[in-house]
C-alpha cells in the first residue's frame, strides 16, 4: 500500500505509482519546494533532532534514566542542568530518554489510525450503499464522544500501559481518517480516468489501489502530520492521569505527573513539558506549511 511509502518529511523513496498519476507528477518537486519555507524547515529540523536523540541517547548519555545520580529534589545546577527528581534522578537525562517512549507511541498511534481509518474510509467511499452507511454511522458515534472520555474508559478497561494507550487512541481517532479518505475517494471516483479504467474492465480492487488511492493520499499525509502533535499531547495526558505509562518509565506525561506531586520543585516538569511543546509545535509548523502549500481544504 502506498500509504506507508509516501513520506512527506523527505528522505524516504516515493512510490513509483504516484509518479504515474498525471495530476500529481510534480509531487516530489513540490515536496522539495515546501522545504524552502522556514517554518517547515525548522519543524523538520526539530523533529529530526528529537528522532536522533531518541535513537542514539543510550550510546552517549552520561547516566541511565533510572539511576540516582545525586541528592534528591536538587534545583538546576551545573552538574544537573534541569535538576533532579524525588528519587535523585537527573531530569535532563530522563527527558532525553522520555523521547524513546513518547515519540514511538505517538508514531504508532498515527500509523494505526491512518491505516485503519483509511481502510474503512476507502471501503466506505468505494463500495457505497449499506457498507458506507454502517461505517459512517459508526464513525459518527465514536466522534460524538469527547475524545478523552472514551480513551480513558478504554485505557482503564485494558489496564495502564503504553501499548493499551495506543489501542485506546487508535480507537478514538480512526473516524477522522475514515471520513477524510471517504470524501476523497467519492470525489476521485467520478473522474474520467477512473471511468476509463472501469470501461476497459480493470477490476474494482485494482482501480481503488492504482487509480484512486494514490491521488487521495496527499491530504491524509498532511492531516497525519498535523495530528501528530495532538496525539503526542493526548498520549502524555493519559499517562498524566495514570492511565498510560507506569513508573519508573520516563514517558513525558508521567514525568509531568511526578512534577505535580512535587509542585514546588518546578524544574521536574520543565524538561518533559518543553519536550512535548517542541515536538508538537514542530509538527504543527510542518503540517501548516504542507497544508498551505498544497491548499488542502478537505479537513475532518
Amino acid at each position, binding site marked *: 500500500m502506498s500509504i506507508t511509502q509516501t513520506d512527506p518529511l523527505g528522505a524516504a523513496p516515493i512510490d513509483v505509482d504516484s509518479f504515474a498519476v498525471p495530476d500529481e507528477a510534480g509531487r516530489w518537486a513540490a515536496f522539495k519546494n515546501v522545504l524552502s519555507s522556514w517554518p517547515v524547515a525548522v519543524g523538520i529540523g526539530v523533529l529530526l533532532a528529537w528522532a536522533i536523540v531518541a535513537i542514539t541517547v543510550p550510546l552517549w548519555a552520561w547516566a541511565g534514566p533510572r539511576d540516582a545520580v545525586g541528592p534528591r529534589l536538587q534545583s538546576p545546577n551545573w552538574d544537573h542542568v534541569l535538576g533532579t527528581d524525588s528519587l535523585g534522578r537527573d531530569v535532563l537525562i530522563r527527558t532525553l530518554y522520555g523521547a524513546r517512549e513518547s515519540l514511538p507511541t505517538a508514531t504508532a498511534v498515527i500509523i494505526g489510525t491512518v491505516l485503519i481509518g483509511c481502510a474503512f474510509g476507502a471501503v466506505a467511499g468505494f463500495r457505497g450503499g449499506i457498507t458506507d452507511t454502517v461505517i459512517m454511522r459508526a464513525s459518527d458515534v465514536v466522534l*460524538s*464522544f469527547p475524545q478523552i*472520555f472514551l480513551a480513558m*474508559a478504554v485505557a*482503564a478497561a485494558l489496564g495502564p500501559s503504553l501499548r493499551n494507550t495506543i489501542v485506546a487512541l487508535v480507537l478514538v481517532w480512526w473516524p477522522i481518517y475514515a471520513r477524510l479518505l471517504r470524501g476523497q475517494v467519492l470525489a476521485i471516483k467520478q473522474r474520467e480516468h477512473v471511468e476509463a479504467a472501469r470501461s476497459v474492465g480493470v477490476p474494482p480492487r485494482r482501480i481503488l489501489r492504482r487509480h484512486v488511492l494514490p491521488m487521495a493520499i496527499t491530504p491524509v499525509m498532511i492531516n497525519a502530520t498535523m495530528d501528530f502533535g495532538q496525539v503526542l499531547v493526548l498520549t502524555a495526558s493519559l499517562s498524566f492521569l495514570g492511565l498510560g505509562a507506569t513508573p519508573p518509565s520516563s514517558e513525558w*506525561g508521567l514525568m509531568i505527573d511526578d512534577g505535580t506531586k512535587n*509542585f514546588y520543585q518546578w524544574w521536574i516538569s520543565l524538561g518533559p513539558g518543553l519536550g512535548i511543546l517542541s515536538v508538537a509545535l514542530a509538527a504543527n509548523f510542518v503540517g501548516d506549511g504542507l497544508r498551505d502549500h498544497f491548499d488542502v481544504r478537505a479537513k475532518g
Partner: protein
Amino acid sequence: MGRFVLRRLAITPVLLLGIVTLAFIVARLIPADPLASIVGERQMGNETVVAAARKRWGLDGGVIQQYFSYLRNVFTGDLGTSFRTKQSVTSDLLDRLPATAELGVGALIVGGVGGISLGIAAARRQNRTVDHVARLTSLVGSSLPVFWLGLIVLYVFYVRLGWFPGPGRLPSRTDAPDHVTGFYTVDALLDGNLGLAWACLRQLMLPSFVLGWGLMGIVSRLVRGATLDELHADYVRTARAKGLGEGVVMRHHVLRNSLTPVITIMGLSLGILLTSAVLTETVFSWNGLGSYAVEATQRLDYPAINGVCITGGVIFLVSSLIADVLYAAVDPKIRYG
C-alpha cells in the same frame, strides 16, 4: 433550513443510541464483576439485594438481555450506583456538573472574547507585531499540554507572584454558598455575599484562562481569516468611499459577517473543552465532571465511567446540534441538503 434542522434532529436519536451502546460495550471490557460494582461489595452477602439487582439489571440473562435492561434503565435516568461513592451515579453527576459548567463558561468567555479581539486586531494589522503575537498564541495554544500550562500558571501566579489564589473552587476555610444553581459565583451573588462572589470569581480565573487558551487560539485564527476576507470585499470599499469612519465600517459591516463562523466553532469546541477540562480540573483540584471521570477510571468504577461517557457524549451531541441550527439560522448563505 427547516428540512436541514429536521434531518439533523432525526439523526440525533440514532447517535444517542449509538453513544449509549458504545458506552455499554466499553464498560463490558472492564474485567470486574458488574454485580459487585452495582450493589457494592458490602451488600454482596445479602441474598435479597443481590437477587433484586440481578433481576433489575438482567444479569441472570444473556448479554442481549443485559443490554436491553441497561437501555431501559439508562433511558429512565438510572445509571446504577457508583462503586466508589456508594451513591447513584446520576446524582453524583448532577452534583459535579455545575462545577464543570461554571469552568466551561469561564473558558468560553476567555476563548470567545480573547479570541475575537485578538483575531480582529491581527486582521487589522496584518503581518505586524499583533498578528505575529496572535499567530504564536494560537500555535502554542494548540501544542501546549494543558496540564503543564496549568502547573506553570499556578506556580507563577500563585506561588511566585501571589496574584491569584491556589487550586480549588473555594478559598480555604470558606463554606460553599447555598445551593441554587451550583455556580458558586452566582449562588454567592444570590446570597447577597459580594465578598464571597469575588473570592469565587478569583478562584475561577486561572483555570478558565488555562482551559480557554486553546479555544482562544482557534477562534482568533478563524476571526482573523474571516475578517481579512471581508475587509477586501467590495462593499467595505464602498462603505469607506462613503466616508464612514473605520470603527463604523468594522462594527456595522465587517464584523457582522466575519463573526458568524465563531458560533459554529464555539459549539464544536465544547468537545475539545471537555477533553481539556478533565486535565484542567485534575491540576486545579476542581470538583467537576472531569475529576469525577479521572477518579472513576483510576478505581475501575464502571457504572461511573459509563455515566461519564454518556454524559460527555450527550453534552457534545446537544452542543453541536445547537451550533449547527444556530449557524443555519444566522447565515442566509447556508442551505443544507
